[in-house]
């Protein structure tokens, strides 16, 4: 490998300003290590509107921990879009994502992905992972929130006889319920896993307003390390219930008190009515400024003393391109509100549309 890399560097004497891998990529795109890619190996249908996509990542990927997510890049009408998906495969195996058709990007992934396709990747990350030391666990999931937990179950249950996992999963109907059969099989086969399926179309939602539902389904829930993943409201309610629990005496604290770890799929930062500004955060410079909805972010940054790249200041030269971390901006020329994490925006013609985080 080292020798290959040295050879590639030597060959770049003949290919500069391109790297040798740019020439190799003419034959196979996966040879580019500058952009991490993965080749789809298998696509498995899960429910009518969801699939699991297995892929073999190229150089630069690091093995995922159970529960982590990765950014996946796909091209839609010539434009690269990035979305984050939880990895549903067990730790130690080739990664896989389970995608439910819920929007333009996921829809294309669900309908059009086939083996041999190339996905753009960013290495896995996330703090929603199993505890360092074995503890009784309670998993609360709803809808596609099962995906990171599925990775945890697959990792833990077959390999650790001493594990103790209770999973309460909500789905609308049995047909919508991801991994239904596999979970039932695992629960039959391994005594360390207990699974309760709740079909909300029949019995209504899991109620977190009181502890009655939990007491019924998992009487020792207070002694378990809890993990929750699902829609915003589901998580907010679960958080509220856990927060309302009285503090245990100090000698029990830390080790035995039930903790709740949650994983949110999205933080909604969508812009205001267009002309509303918002709090602009320059992450690398560690500065925050309130900006109105009509001032270019370039001016906002400069006025705050941030070293902003700049050029023509009228939207033609692209010298000011800055990566957006979060939030949305309004194009001062067209009024269009747009923005995705990672997208490079022209700060000289973009104003804040709600809170905005910039990588500067």
């Amino acid at each position, binding site marked *: 490998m080292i020798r290959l890399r040295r050879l590639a560097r030597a060959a770049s004497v003949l290919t500069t300003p391109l790297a040798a891998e740019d020439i190799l990529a003419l034959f196979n795109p996966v040879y580019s290590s500058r952009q991490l890619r993965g080749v789809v190996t298998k696509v498995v249908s899960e429910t009518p509107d969801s699939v699991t996509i297995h892929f073999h990542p190229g150089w630069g990927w690091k093995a995922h921990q159970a529960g982590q997510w990765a950014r996946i890049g796909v091209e839609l009408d*010539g434009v690269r879009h990035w979305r984050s998906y939880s990895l549903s495969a067990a730790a130690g195996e080739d990664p896989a994502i389970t995608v439910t058709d819920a929007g333009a990007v996921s829809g294309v992934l669900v309908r059009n992905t086939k083996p041999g396709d190339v996905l753009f990747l960013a290495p896995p990350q996330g703090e929603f992972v199993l505890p360092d030391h074995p503890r009784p666990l309670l998993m609360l999931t709803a809808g596609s929130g099962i995906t990171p937990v599925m990775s945890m179950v697959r990792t833990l249950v077959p390999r650790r006889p001493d594990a103790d996992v209770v999973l309460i999963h909500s789905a609308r109907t049995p047909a919508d319920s991801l991994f239904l059969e596999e979970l039932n099989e695992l629960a039959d086969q391994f005594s360390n896993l207990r699974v309760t399926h709740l079909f909300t179309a029949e019995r209504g939602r899991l109620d977190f307003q009181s502890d009655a539902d939990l007491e019924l389904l998992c009487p020792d829930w207070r002694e378990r390390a809890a993990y929750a993943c699902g829609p915003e409201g589901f998580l907010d309610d679960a958080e509220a219930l856990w927060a309302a629990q009285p503090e245990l005496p100090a000698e029990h604290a830390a080790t035995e008190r039930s903790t709740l770890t949650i994983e949110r799929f999205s933080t909604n930062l969508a812009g205001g009515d267009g002309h509303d500004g918002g709090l602009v955060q320059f992450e690398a410079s560690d500065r925050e400024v309130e*900006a109105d909805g009509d001032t270019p972010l370039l001016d906002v940054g400069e006025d705050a003393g941030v070293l902003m790249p700049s050029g023509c200041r009228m939207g033609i030269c692209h*010298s000011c391109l800055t990566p957006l971390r979060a939030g949305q901006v309004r194009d001062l020329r067209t009024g269009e509100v747009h923005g995705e994490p990672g997208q490079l925006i022209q700060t000289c013609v973009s104003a804040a549309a709600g809170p905005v985080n910039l990588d500067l």
Partner: protein
Amino acid sequence: MTTLTERTETKPAVTRPGALAATGHPLVRPPAAAHLSDEQVAELGRELDAVRDEVLAKRGATDAAYIRRVIKVQRGLEIGGRAALLVGRNKAAWVAGTAMLSVAKILENMEIGHNVLHGQWDWMRDPDIHSTTWEWDFVTPARSWQHTHNDLHHRWTNVVGKDRDVGYNLLRMDADQPWTPFNLGNPLYNAILAPVFEWGIALYDLEIPEYKEGLKSKEDMNRDLKAVGVKAVKQFTKDYAATPAVAMLTGSGKQALYGTLAANAIRNVWAHAVIFCGHFPEGTDTFTEEMVEGETRGDWYVRQMIGSANISGSKFMHLMTGNLSHQVEHHCFPDLPSNRYAEVAVKVKEICNRYGLPYTTGPLPKQVASTWAKVFKLALPDTGRFSLKKKAETAGAS
């Protein structure tokens, strides 16, 4: 929002808002557009904005496939050309290799490099085809060129005293530039410049006059010198040392060296010719600083259109010029993908005609001859001043 009274960085002398005003007027409107009212200019601005929006709405997978195809063909030619030169002792191989490498270098420089560095393909969000990551097979580092070209030249298009592309600090290309005896050498300098154009641009991008005038800091100068030094060594090594060295294995070292020299010279002469046809042929206007003070969006478009000239020709010719043959359209919409300029041109020309603005175009030989005529004429003091202005006015009236 906090406001700081002092700025650490200097802003351009004429400050501009994020987007130019839609209404109003400059201190002086250029003669070729003097017959237009403020309302007409504003309407013209809206019409051209609509042309741009239409392309933005259509831009997609076919455009992405286009640039990827061009890049693939270019890299294929580059590999093929270099491989043929490695056995350049064979005459046919030498001719084929030099031809392929020349075409590859022209495509790389113009249809790919120039346009990618303008951000024409940034919308794809592909970090490998992006204005912030691209580096090209040209001595001047991409970042330096983006500053002098995208920012300075495209912002100040043809404003004498602001846009140093008017003569590149070397040639007298406008009658409003004061004559000195040095200008007698105009034709000679231009003839020498053409085959070594990339080195001329590298030197130009260092902005030595700005440095001498104290407008560029010593740190910036050192940074740029270092960048161009590193780049020049790499470029020189590739074409004039590494390629001939490998070719020596077949006893073709000398031929390979001649081949790379020829390919670079051919690319340089071609790029020089095409670029000079962009703003220097008869019929293109230059502007004073009063004409940009208070400029509206519509006036900005007017200046780009009457300050630029197209080259007419076949599809292949447009490809080989990097679609700079659509210089008028490129200057109106520098970040639209180049494959769209041809369809945009039809609309821009119609708008020019309707508003009584000159739309300069002509076949390559005619435009090249026209730029050379200017190079010769302006070598002498105060010649042609009257005839040039008159020409612009008659063109404006037609």
